[in-house]
């Protein structure tokens, strides 16, 4: 973990201790994140979904530490063809997040919030190739590492405990396949998009 990421984690831990008890100072939210992954290369992924579940602990009425996990479906790139084969790549990703969630309540039932922090990913890339009828191959490689995320959203309280939230966010996974391939082929993966979800305060 980098120095910056370590420092961030230490700050979060410092902020949440000593614990200050507020009524309903915990929130669990679950979201479906719609995104088009981008690697900065010639990829052209379809829209995919990443589910995330977060636990938010409010040590101040307007500030929570947030930790969560995420996992995606298999997200497909377009089918392509070159002189070697007809091929299609896809990826699946999962991981953990840790960050802060500041909020601003502008009415009884509505607030806006932001989320930012670090993440740990485990991403699997699959490439399926068709050479000619009867000759094909599918290969899978996994990679893990760190990254960061940032987002902003709006939350609306249906009841005192249940909220609906709409968020735009961007997750960045850094240096995929670092150490496994040449430095020119290492890439970052960005998943930006919007999510909708529900939260439960307790």
């Amino acid at each position, binding site marked *: 973990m980098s120095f910056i990421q370590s420092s961030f984690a230490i700050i979060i831990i410092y902020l949440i201790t000593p614990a200050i008890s507020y009524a309903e100072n915990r929130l669990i939210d679950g979201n479906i994140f719609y995104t088009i992954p981008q*690697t900065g290369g010639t*990829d052209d992924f379809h829209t995919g979904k990443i589910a995330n579940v977060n636990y938010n602990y409010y040590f101040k009425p307007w500030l929570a530490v947030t930790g969560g996990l995420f996992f995606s479906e298999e997200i497909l790139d377009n089918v392509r063809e070159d002189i070697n084969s007809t091929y299609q790549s896809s990826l699946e990703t999962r991981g953990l997040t840790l960050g802060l969630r500041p909020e601003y309540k502008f009415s009884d039932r509505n607030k806006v919030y932001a989320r930012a922090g670090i993440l740990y990913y485990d991403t699997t890339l699959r490439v399926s190739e068709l050479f000619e009828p009867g000759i094909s191959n599918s290969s899978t490689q996994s990679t893990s590492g760190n990254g960061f995320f940032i987002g902003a959203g709006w939350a609306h309280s249906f009841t005192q405990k249940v909220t609906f939230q709409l968020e735009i966010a961007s997750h960045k996974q850094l240096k995929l396949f670092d150490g*496994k391939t040449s430095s020119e082929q290492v890439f970052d993966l960005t998943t930006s998009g919007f999510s909708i979800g529900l939260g439960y305060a307790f």
Partner: protein
Amino acid sequence: MPYTKSIVLKSALLLFLVQFITACDLELDTNLPGVPAEGRFTAVAANQHTGVSSVQLGAAIFIDGEPAKLYGGDVVQGSTTNDFVLLLDDGFYTGSYSADLPNAANLSQIEFLMVHKPLETREGRWYPIDLFNFDPGPGELVGASASVTLPPEPLNIASSSTNFNSINDSFNLTWTAEAVQTPADIIKVRSLVSCANGTKTNTYGTEAVLVDNSDDGTEDINIDQFIYDITDTEPTIKFILDEARAALQELLIKLSNGEIADDFFANNEIINPVDNECEITLFLFRQRDGSFSAPSSPDSKIVGSRSSEISLFYNPN
């Protein structure tokens, strides 16, 4: 429409590759015409244009009339003694491949070899290709080879006139003849014609019917080999096939990074060349046959050439 050198060169190679194989039947798809229904058929061309430091290579391979699609790393390699290149780019015709081979030293011997390069043929993919490098093994064509010797560059190409106002006009095309070879090199004259009426532009290609194809340094040619009247039911003009028009469109779109619209050649209003200003880019090819290492269809051909160009202008007004 100003044509860049590269547009002209690639168009020239395409016109050349099509013309040395085909008859004049028009077809409406991207299948190379004139391919025999049985056996292995190979068409290979190499051309270096005056003032250009690379050789344009093209290769099309067919088995029993169908394109022999290369896969798994099989690729045609073109080389001189100084450099080599893999023909990775798709040619205009289904089953054809192309590339530019650096040749600043103007070397004449060009070698073609079918090689097996599973990693290099995956370059351009966005993911780490060294981690996903399944190799199905070399195909049956690997090891096949061919060679051609490029003839000398046609020098001092000139026309007795460059401005014309009637399709009945003619001109004398001259160039420095080469010493007689055995077998003799032959001369081909092809054109890229672009006509405009101020709002629309038409382009097409033709091949001039010469008195003879000998390399004698002189040829009388009529303008009606390049400019025609669309109302004429029996034009004497010999068009490059319609595929060449589509190919020119693709080249122009590609080389202009999409600035030229897809309907560049889709003229809703047909321009009659005989009534409008036209620029005629004449390509003079000096060409000679090469040889294959393995038996191919008797119609297979490998041709090497060098070319020059000259521009003529037609304005009937």
